[in-house]
């Protein structure tokens, strides 16, 4: 670490503004296209990819085993019991959905704010959203134990039993929030990819590749009329995804906030859940981006500027989360309600208190003291470690909220404890495998960095008004 932050001839520093560049200088439309299409269209898949895919795939197989056994035996194989009927399933559900939120934040909210730096990371952040939602949505469904029946429990459709779902239940709201979120994320992701699929079609050498990408590109040809409608549709989708993403974790927090459990029914829950979601989501973006840029040599496109900005967003959302924790305790005190007060004490010093201290260390004490440092935010190894720590911490946050409230509620005679079984762990670790497997497939088969959006931030993309005037005057 003897190097200084700013060296006089560092090509990554813009000489005019003195800021880190969003992408490295020297790229042209053609070189960027070739660099990014080659990752997918190469006939030589890197050996490391096969290795990683095999590893992730075998972990995903473990999920298959765990879920198959669950369907054969029922949810009794899990550690859930009375009074903790919501164990790992809900913890993992909330955690995964939260991870997805950063993808939408990057693709939608930063688009509305015209943050051009987001262009190179938005495609894989959106992919991360979709895969995280797949992992998340699985948990409530398998938690029913009989997912084939969940169809009529969850979806309003005319059935022979003349049964209709209960629309006043937050769990029904979840169904609509999460299914809308998944659908809109897929549409936004796919629409965003159409121009790049056109590029892939035109650059594919094999007949099969041309056919597949040709079908997926829907005949995109870059017509200006198409582009203008496309831009409008993108902005509209971004404008719709923004209130959507805020509503999804809000609705999930209602699962808790509408209940009467001590520690759950507070009005701080919606904003605090959303901030926590974005916090862990940006951590996951870093966890994914750092190895990918190293492995595929994309340091020019996913630059220190991107990682630094992710760190800053984490710092900001981390403080909102810290405020949430403080409010939790302040609420318990101010409520003058002995159950709430006991819950707060039990959460911090009770038998499960260790989980609270893990969460304080990994969400507050470590990241929020070190992320301030610009030097550390520019250190890739530090960012990778902090991203893993924050994701662990956010998982423990959900654990603390779910488990400590449920194990000791109003009636001491109904107190209990919670211990997850190996099937719980296998299912959770298995979804990590599934997520990684899907990600490996995505980076191998689809363009992970949006080429059409990178072209817009290249220096040659702007219309030269002076030259245009001159030509007009000819």
């Amino acid at each position, binding site marked *: 670490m003897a190097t200084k932050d700013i060296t006089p001839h560092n090509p990554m520093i813009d000489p005019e503004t003195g800021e880190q560049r969003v992408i490295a200088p020297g790229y042209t439309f053609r070189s960027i296209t070739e660099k990014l299409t080659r990752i997918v269209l190469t006939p030589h898949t890197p050996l490391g990819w096969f290795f990683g895919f095999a590893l992730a795939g075998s972990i995903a197989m473990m999920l298959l085993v765990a879920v198959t056994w669950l369907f054969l035996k029922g949810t009794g194989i899990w550690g859930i019991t009375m009074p903790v009927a919501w164990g790992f399933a809900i913890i993992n559900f909330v955690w995964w959905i939260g991870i997805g939120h950063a993808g939408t934040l990057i693709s939608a909210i930063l688009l509305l704010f015209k943050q051009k730096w987001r262009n190179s990371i938005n495609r894989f952040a959106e992919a991360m959203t979709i895969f995280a939602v797949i992992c998340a949505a699985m948990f409530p469904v398998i938690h029913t134990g009989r997912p084939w029946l969940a169809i009529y429990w969850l979806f309003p459709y005319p059935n022979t039993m003349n049964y209709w779902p209960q629309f006043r239940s937050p769990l029904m709201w979840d169904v609509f929030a999460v299914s809308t979120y998944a659908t809109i994320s897929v549409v936004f992701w796919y629409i965003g990819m159409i121009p790049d699929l056109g590029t892939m079609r035109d650059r594919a050498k094999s007949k099969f590749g041309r056919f597949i990408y040709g079908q997926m590109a829907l005949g995109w040809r870059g017509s200006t009329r198409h582009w203008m409608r496309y831009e409008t549709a993108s902005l509209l989708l971004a404008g719709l995804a923004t209130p959507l993403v805020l509503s999804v974790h809000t609705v999930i927090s209602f699962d808790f906030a509408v209940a009467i459990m001590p520690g759950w029914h507070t009005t701080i829950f919606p904003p605090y859940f959303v901030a926590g979601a974005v916090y862990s989501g940006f951590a996951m973006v870093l966890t994914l981006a750092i190895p990918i840029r190293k492995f595929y040599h994309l340091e020019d496109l996913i630059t220190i500027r991107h990682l630094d900005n992710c760190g800053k967003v984490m710092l900001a959302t981390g403080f909102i989360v810290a405020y949430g924790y403080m409010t939790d305790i302040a609420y318990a005190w101010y409520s003058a309600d002995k159950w709430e007060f006991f819950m707060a004490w039990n959460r911090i010093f009770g038998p499960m208190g260790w989980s609270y201290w893990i969460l304080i260390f990994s969400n507050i004490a470590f990241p929020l003291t070190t992320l301030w440092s610009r030097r550390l935010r520019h250190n890739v190894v530090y960012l990778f470690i902090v991203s893993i720590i924050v994701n662990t911490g956010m998982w423990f946050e959900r654990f603390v909220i779910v488990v400590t409230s449920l194990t000791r509620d109003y009636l001491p005679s109904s107190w209990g404890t919670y211990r997850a079984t190996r099937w719980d762990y296998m299912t959770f670790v298995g979804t990590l495998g599934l997520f990684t497997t899907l990600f490996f497939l995505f980076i191998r088969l689809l363009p992970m960095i949006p080429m059409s959006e990178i072209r817009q931030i290249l220096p040659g993309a702007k*219309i030269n008004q002076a030259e245009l005037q001159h030509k007009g005057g000819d």
Partner: protein
Amino acid sequence: MPVREGIYGLLAEFDTPTELVAAAKTSYDAGYRRMDCYTPYPVEEAAEAIGFDEPREKGVSRVCLLGGILGGLAMFTLESWVSIWAYPLDIAGRGKFSWVAFIIPAYEWTILWAGLCAGFGMLALNRLPSPYHPLFNAPNFRNGATSDKFFLCLEADDPRFSLTDTRSLLESLHPVSVVEVEH
């Protein structure tokens, strides 16, 4: 799409977006209207130059608004119907029309259908998917239009189109090449 005989139009290739926009302006001023630009990323100035004003067309936004209104109304109506008539639940005598709780799924469906209509409406207005298009017959189109070249196509069904005059107009704009595109 039926395969037609004859010429679709004349396609001029340019290296920079500025040359393309200048060429499109000149052609528009010369009275051509059936024309389009093809670029590897959105160039707003090109749309202005060919007289295409998306904000005025409002196609995508209208479809999106309509989808949102219908989606929200549909879900709210369904919830009310289920809770009042189809499957009323009497829970300690609480009211059946608890519209506050119904807002949340209705809100989600507003976004769902607005989003689907924006996405698919955009594709429909663009007449996509259309795997075949005459422009793909041009030898240089596929190599450039989706990566680094800028194209202007003056189409043959424009009343001003003539193979010789239009070609000489395009050639006066210093393109890389001008090719005839067959149907």
